[in-house]
């Protein structure tokens, strides 16, 4: 009975406002003239021109440098004075898997057990999540949706955020397996204080993981196993290098243990997720060529003696050390991740070059996710997945997305939140 009531309440609220309709495939061709193009690779074109057709970019240039036959385009958009960015990419998120943190029935991100490589986020990805439109509203057009959990969380996929169903949405299927590295420290509650100490179970958990990986690797050496193990089957691509391994670790010792572990299994595509202490290990990470999807900057330093701005300065420190990183907003609640670009803005305030910050929201992330050949920057031949903002999109004071395109489709930027705003503005006759 109670479940029914809850269900009714949810469906009522869902019906109360209109969901944006996914855009149809691009027909005709579009030319965008004027505006500052943040390419995504660190370069900028002021007064740019972008042409795209059949979902692909056909032209990127400074408008005055080339001759453009505007008659050959079916639509021309004037972007002068505006800023154009590749679609921002949200990696390592639970988008479409989680809706309301406190309502269990709306949560689909964490499967039972500690070894779930075979669990696939894609099939649970809810294209109708109310959270998705709020991401697009701020410029996030692509995301990696990944399971959560202990140890081997499961397999993620990359989705574009304007789709009817998950088959429509998928951009890269089963791109990576996600591993929560065990914590080297235990946290215990004692007399009103949280006490963190070395965890004796740490070594034990790593040994369990080793056994699992040993078995999985041995299993993968035989192509056609008679008795199929779903978990090991799902890990074959990890050992061939087709799939990436995302390892979640924050502490300096954990990071080193985790990377040494992955190296031992000759896993070619390792991504560190989190990496709070990565500033202590820049040489090591550089040497091993490990990219990082970083935590949200909106977290407190872990120690009282830390630089009070250490979280804000991390991107600059990584850039200076030559380590590839993407903004990940890890640690934020899902609904907060619409603010991912403001993390990038804060890192600029603390020393990172602006175009480097844009790159860490776009091309870097695309490269880390393995989709950079078709997306992540505004370059000829790539998907027309980008947006026009009336102001600087990295600053909440000016972020204002006017047009957004995913694979050439001009998408509806409306949200139910905006609809409620309009509804009540009318009620009070304001605006």
């Amino acid at each position, binding site marked *: 009975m109670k479940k029914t009531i*809850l269900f009714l*309440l*949810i469906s009522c*609220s869902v019906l109360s406002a209109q969901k944006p309709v996914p855009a149809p495939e691009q027909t005709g061709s579009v030319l965008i003239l004027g505006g500052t193009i943040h390419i995504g690779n660190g370069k900028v074109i002021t007064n740019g021109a972008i042409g795209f057709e059949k979902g692909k970019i056909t032209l990127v240039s400074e408008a005055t440098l080339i001759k453009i036959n505007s008659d050959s385009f079916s639509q021309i958009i004037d972007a002068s004075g505006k800023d154009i960015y590749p679609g921002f990419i949200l990696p390592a998120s639970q988008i479409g898997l989680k*809706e*309301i*943190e*406190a*309502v269990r029935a709306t949560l689909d991100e964490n499967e039972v057990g500690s070894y779930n490589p075979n669990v696939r986020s894609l099939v649970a990805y809810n294209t109708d999540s*109310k*959270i998705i439109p709020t991401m697009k509203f701020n410029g996030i057009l692509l995301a990696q949706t990944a399971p959560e959990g202990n140890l081997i969380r499961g397999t993620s996929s990359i989705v574009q955020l304007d789709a009817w169903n998950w088959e429509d949405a998928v951009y890269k299927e089963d791109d990576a397996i996600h591993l929560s590295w065990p914590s080297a*420290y235990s946290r215990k509650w004692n*007399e*009103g*204080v*949280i*006490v*963190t*100490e*070395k965890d004796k179970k740490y070594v034990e958990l790593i040994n369990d993981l080793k056994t699992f990986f040993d078995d999985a690797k041995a299993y993968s050496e035989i192509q056609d196993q008679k008795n199929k193990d779903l978990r090991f089957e799902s890990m074959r691509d990890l050992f061939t290098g087709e799939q990436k391994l995302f390892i979640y670790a924050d*502490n*300096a*010792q954990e990071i080193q243990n985790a990377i040494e572990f992955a190296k031992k299994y000759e896993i070619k595509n390792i991504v560190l997720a989190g990496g709070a202490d990565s500033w*202590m290990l820049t040489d090591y990470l550089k040497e091993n060529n490990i990219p990082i999807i970083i935590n949200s900057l*909106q977290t*407190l*330093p872990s*120690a*009282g*003696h830390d*630089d*009070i*701005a250490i979280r804000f300065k991390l991107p600059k420190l990584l850039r200076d050390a030559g380590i590839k990183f993407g903004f990940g907003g890890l640690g934020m*609640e*899902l*609904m*907060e991740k*619409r*603010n991912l670009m*403001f993390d990038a*803005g*804060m890192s*600029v*305030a*603390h020393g990172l070059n602006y175009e480097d910050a844009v790159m860490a929201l776009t091309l870097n992330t695309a490269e880390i996710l393995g989709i950079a050949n078709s997306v992540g920057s505004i370059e000829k031949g790539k998907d027309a997945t980008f947006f026009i903002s009336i102001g600087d999109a*990295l*600053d*909440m*004071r*000016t972020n*204002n997305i006017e047009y957004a395109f995913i694979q050439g489709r001009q998408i509806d930027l409306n949200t139910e*939140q*905006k609809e*409620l*705003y309009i509804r*009540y*503005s009318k009620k*009070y006759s*304001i*605006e």
Partner: protein
Amino acid sequence: MKKIIVLFIFSACSLFGQETFPTNGITNQNKSNYAFTNAILIVNPETTIEKATLLISNGKIIDVGKSITPPDGFVVVDLAGNYIYPSFIDIYTQYGIEEAKRKKENNPGPQMFSSKSGAFGWNEAVKPEVNGADLFSIDNKEIEEWLKAGFGAVLTHQLDGIVRGTATFTLLGKESENKSILKREAASLYSFSKGVSRQDYPSSLMGSIALLKQTYHDAYWYKNGGNKLEENISLDEFNSIQDLPQIFEVRDVLSIPRADKIGDEFGKQYIIKGSGNEYQKIDLVKSAEVRLIIPINFPDAFDVEDPFDAELVSLEAMKHWELAPLNPMMLDKAGIEFAITSLGTKSKNEFWTNLRKSINLGFNKKTALKALTTIPAKLINSEEMAGTLDKGKIANFLITSGDIFDESTQIYQNWVAGKPTVLASFEDKSLAGNFELTFNGFNYDLEIESKDSKLKSKVTFENEKAIPAKINYGNELVTLSFSDSARGYFRLNGIFDSQNRTFKGKGQDENGKWFSWSAKFKNEIVKQDKNEDNSKESEEYLSNLGEITYPFLPYGKSNFNANNNYLIKNAMVWTMENDEAPSQMDVLIKNGKISEVGKNLPSTDGVPTFDAEGKHLTPGIIDEHSHLAITRGGNESGLASSAEVNIGDILNSDHINIYRQLAGGVTTVQVLHGSANPIGGKAALIKLRWGKSADEMKFENADGFIKFALGENVKQSNWGSDNKERYPQTRMGVEQFYIERFTRAKEYEESWERYNKLSDNEKKNAIQPRKDLELETLVEILNSKRFITCHSYVQSEINMLMKVAEKFGFKVNTFTHILEGYKVADKMLEHGAAGSSFSDWWAYKFEVNDAIPFNAAIMTKVGINTAINSDDAEMARRLNQEAAKSIKYGGMSEIDALKMVTLNPAKMLHIDNKVGSIKVGKDADLVIWSDNPLSVYAIAEKTFIDGIIYFDREEEKILQESIGKERARLIQKMLSVKKSGGKTQKPKKEEQIEYHCDTIINFN
């Protein structure tokens, strides 16, 4: 002399029978009359008598002095060269009493009321009826430890609960509880910890404080007529123990003023059982004018060999390791009187090690002796019977080989009420020395050393290497054996003549051949002075010490720049006083106030000038909803109304987030109770005066606020399936609960009005109403003397609370969070409520499904005074950015957006006459920003409060560097401890939790 030792052993049997107890066999009528002569007698820490005589009889001292002839019938003990000290008293122990145990959990759900049988009070943590004497039984094992360590009497009780009952003062006697107890009820004990009680209330420190205060009021009411209305053993007992010394245990120096304030309110001067970190806040201790009982449980050094593991250890923990042993000395130097307790040390050996450590580091020996004898006796009003060796007092004393605090000193005997415990044999000093040993024509040098009552010896043949020899001595007979590879294996036995210091006896060689041997005294052994070594070591330790900073944390400072006069030139000034765009101006700060705002203000001598060209100047940011700087619980969740609790009682001045928020331009913060119940607790308004005490941080003369809450948290929707008992569980019940409490409050007020109108005569026959702290607070609300800020989400409940308030004739001052405020903005405007919202939070609970980031913009446009708050220690560092989101969501102007974190919350909190805008006469709470304050690129460079710079980004860099250096220094010091074989502990991090509205924890 040697005979006496034998005697002592015999006399260890019972000296007195017990009057009411039957005897088995012959009654012992021995009075144990002893005369101790020729001793160096420390009568008390101030008086030492050389060659003194001490007479004891029947367990008491009957005479003490210089030329006393031992009367007949006394056993005479010659103590030439030895010392007599009063034995130690520990007045904070649990000796002989079992630790309280938590009852087994039968029901995993809440326990709202007491589960105790009997007509006791309502709360299990208040148990004045518990008496240590009822629980006490002699512990034959533990007592030996106590006696060995030199203690003769202790105050003991079960250390559990908030009101703990009475402790009993007892001798460390071995035979009978009845004879050992000196004072059955010697003190009554208190703390802020509810201990093993499973009852939900209190679940927080502020709840403990409120419960204790309410108990004083209840007991007063009970005594004055309440007892006609109910029987309550607890309140009765509480009243009966009020004249005893009152001892209050705290966990932290910051709780000393908390306890002291309660004492002031109810006319009590507590003796504070401290925690050992008093040195960090000597001024607080001094101003509380309390006497202390302090532990000497110094932490071991951390094992910091792994540099990553070492990162776990906080700077303050490292500093505490270094400075804790100086706590006694520093308290003494500050003139604070204290007793020392052994409670907290892992063993009595550690107690002694630590005590000597403190003394080596400069703690005055006389004070140490006082802290272990006269002061504890005085604190529990027992100085007439114990603590010194004056005539008439209990014969509790120690016989020692020397100054009791010297490392080489041996406690030979511990006498408790005239009965001795022999801890070591008297050392025969004549036995130690260099002797010439002769036998079979050989001449050896024999060196006999006496250390800790143990003999050590070695023999040397001419210029050869020394050979260790085994030596034993007892009852005048000595045995000595050694193996000389050149000359053979010899075993000797002989008699020692102490008069002439010679040995004589027979020996046998390895072939079984007998021979005669003798040895005669040559000279004394030249001892190297260990004290000198110690003093060198301690000099080194003291020469290289960390500073005490305020607060005692990283980024704390040891000196405070109190200058509050500055001229800020050429800044883009956001006055908030009008809707005009900011313009370039100067601002003069004089005596902490904004004195002038304008163009080209002249500079004055002695007033530092900042050229802020290209920078922005705004009022300090005000956070209407925060849980910053809370100690042990931001929710009193035990009951649905906790209007009696006060966040102002439990502020933590030493929290790093204060500094971090200053770095985000925050100057004023309303610290709120959480949202666990419909009626929460009283709020505190503070300015982030980093380095000041909690009381000094409080915003002067501010109106009082209280937190209310609605929705899922108060109806416990997300508390798990066990929490379905506490009323209310629905939004329907929430309304009824409010009506119920305000109805009770109204009647309460009326009952007092009626009572106060009575004539003096009529009052005599009437029963005074019980003072109820919860209802008192609600009456303040009814009379618009306290103002509500109510946690709220959905429109129905927002509407409901306004209607309840209107029914009772008051207004809801502020709805906080108020995420569906946009749906009832017109009604809020009509009611006159303000709204303090999150910028863009939603989707974390069902009730925030319709929360929209346009909320603040709609409310503002409708005309509601709207603010943006944090409710989060991290978000509070960038409230300017949160405000800026309303420019994006709803097209708010920049000025209006910035007002939401400055002037608007100031109005909400009724402090806009002092802060919130840049206006002549207001407090100079200002922030210099690197950029437009609404931009993500803006960084707070300087934060002023009352014109004083509390945060400066340039200074922060310097502080950071010195933190690094200080850690490096302490790490090196700890490493050297490990290298030299000292004790270490594993690295660990201890952190306070960050509180949010819904942080619900049950604190014991």
